[in-house]
C-alpha cells in the first residue's frame, strides 16, 4: 500500500510541478473574467441609477466601471505577456490571447457604454421614456447574463471540460435574446424621433449599440472556448 502511494506520488509530484505555471495562468484568466463580469454588474447598476438615482451615484458608478476596466486591461496585458514568454499552452497560445482580448473587450464596451450613459441628458423626455421601459432593464440584465454564462463555460473548460460546449451555446442564446431586445429598443427610440432633440436620439442609439457590444464580445469569447474544445482540450 505504501509502495503504491509512493508510486502515485512519484508520478504526480513532477507533473504538478510542471503544470504549476499553467494553473497560475488559468487562475489569472478566471480572475480577469471575474473583473470583466464585475464591470458589467456595475454597468447594470448604472442603468438602474440613471432611472432613479442621483447624479452623484451615476458619476460614482461610472468611475467604478472605468477603474475596473483599467484593471481588466492591465490583467490582459500581463496574461498576454506571460503567454508569449512561456512554453506552456503551446497549442493554445493564439486561442488564449484571443480569449483575454475578448474578455477585455467586454469591460471596454461596458466602459464606453457607461460614459455615454453618464453624458445623457437625464431630464430628456426620451431618455426618461426609454429608461423607464421594462426592455431596458431586461437588456442590461441580458448583458450581465451573457457574461455570467461565459464565466460558467470558462470554469467548466478549465476545471473539467465536459460541459463547456453546452454552456458556450448558452452564451449564444443570451446574445441572441439581447439582439432581439436591442432591436425593440431601437424601434422605440426611433418611433417618434422627430419630436425629440436629435442629439438625444443619437446618444441613446449609440448607448444601445455599445451595450450590445458587451454581449457580442461575450459570444466571441464563447466561440474561442468552442475552438479550444475542438482542439481536443475537453
Amino acid at each position, binding site marked *: 500500500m505504501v509502495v503504491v502511494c509512493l508510486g502515485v506520488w512519484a508520478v504526480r509530484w513532477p507533473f504538478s510541478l510542471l503544470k504549476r505555471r*499553467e494553473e497560475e495562468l*488559468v487562475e489569472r484568466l478566471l480572475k480577469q473574467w471575474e473583473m470583466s463580469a464585475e464591470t458589467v454588474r456595475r454597468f447594470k447598476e448604472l442603468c438602474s441609477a440613471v432611472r432613479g438615482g442621483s447624479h452623484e451615484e451615476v458619476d460614482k458608478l461610472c468611475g467604478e466601471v472605468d477603474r475596473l476596466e483599467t484593471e481588466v486591461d492591465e490583467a490582459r496585458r500581463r496574461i498576454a505577456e506571460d503567454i508569449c514568454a512561456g512554453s506552456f499552452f503551446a497549442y493554445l497560445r493564439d486561442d488564449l490571447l484571443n480569449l483575454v482580448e475578448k474578455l477585455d473587450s467586454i469591460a471596454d464596451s461596458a466602459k464606453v457604454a457607461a460614459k455615454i450613459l453618464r453624458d445623457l441628458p437625464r431630464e430628456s423626455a426620451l431618455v426618461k421614456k426609454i429608461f423607464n421601459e421594462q426592455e431596458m432593464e431586461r437588456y442590461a440584465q441580458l448583458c450581465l447574463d451573457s457574461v455570467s454564462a461565459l464565466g460558467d463555460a470558462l470554469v467548466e473548460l478549465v476545471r473539467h471540460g465536459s460541459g463547456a460546449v453546452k454552456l458556450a451555446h448558452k452564451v449564444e442564446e443570451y446574445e441572441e435574446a439581447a439582439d432581439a431586445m436591442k432591436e425593440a429598443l431601437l424601434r422605440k427610440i426611433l418611433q417618434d424621433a422627430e419630436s425629440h432633440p436629435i442629439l438625444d436620439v443619437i446618444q441613446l442609439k449609440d448607448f444601445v449599440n455599445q451595450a450590445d457590444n458587451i454581449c457580442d464580445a461575450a459570444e466571441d469569447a464563447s466561440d474561442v472556448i468552442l475552438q479550444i474544445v475542438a482542439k481536443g482540450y475537453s
Partner: protein
Amino acid sequence: MLEVVLVSIALALVFGWNNSSIAVGALTGVRLLTYRRASLLVASAMLLGVVAEGWKMKPSLLLSGAPSGEAAATALAVSTALMLGANIAAIPVSLSNIATAAYVGAAYSAGQQISIDFLTRVIVAWVAAPLIVLAATSLLYGAVRRLARNVSLATMDAFNRLSVYAVVFYVSYALAANNVSFILALAREAGAYSGLLPLALALACSLGVMLVGRGIMGVMAESLVILSPQKLLTGLFTAATMLWLFTQLSIPVALTQNMLGGFLGAALTTRIALVKAATLRKLIASWTLTTLAGLALAYAYALLL
C-alpha cells in the same frame, strides 16, 4: 571504402533533412523548445537508436545467396540521388522503399538470387503496417480520450507538453533504429567497416534534421488531415511503435507511411474527419513511383557498371 562512407553519410544527411520537421514541426513550431535544443534531443535519440538497435537491420536477407557489396553500394548511390532530388522538389519519399527497391534492382541486375520469401514479407509489411497503425491509433486515441475526459485544461496542457518531448524522442529513436541503421547495414555490406560509422551516420542525420526544411509531417498533419495535438501525438506514437516492431524483424519500413496510417486513424475517430483525398493520392503515387524509379535506376546503374 571512403566513397561508400561518404555516400552513406550524404544519404543520412539527406534523410535527416527529409525528416527535419519531426523536430521543426512538433517542437519548435509551437515554441516548446528552441531549435538548438530540439535538434539536440533528436540527435541524441537518433544516436541511441543506431547504437542500441542498429545491428538488427540486415539488407542481405533480401538475397538468397551471399551479401552483395556492389548491390549495397549501388543502392546507397541511387537512394542518395533520388532522396536529394525529391527533397529539392519537395516530393514526399520513403528511404526504406527506395533503398530496398534499389538494392533488389542492383542485385537482380548483377545476377544475384532474390529471396522471394523475405521480399514478400517486406512488401506485405509496407502495405499492412499503415493499416495496422490506422486501427491501433483509433483504439489508442479512444483510450486517451477516455483518460482525458475529466482532466483540467492545465493538466491536459502539461500532459501534451510532456508527450511531445517523449514522442519526438521515441520517433527519432525508432527512425534511427530502422532507417538510419538500414543505411549503416548497406554501408557495411559495401565494405565500410569503420567503428565510428554509426556515430557519423547519426550525426549526419541529425545535421540533416537541423537544416531547415518543411517535411512530410507538415504535409500530413496540416495538408492531409486537420488534427488536434493529442491525435497528432497518438498517431506518431503508434507509427514509431510499428517502426520499432519491424526493426526487431529486420524489415525496413517507412515512418512516413505509418504516420499516414496513424494520422488517418486519428482523424477517423471523429464524426467529421477532414481528410484531403487529393493529397492522399499524391502521397501514394509519389511513394509508388519513387520506389519503382529506385528499382529501375539501380538495375540500369548495375548493368552499366
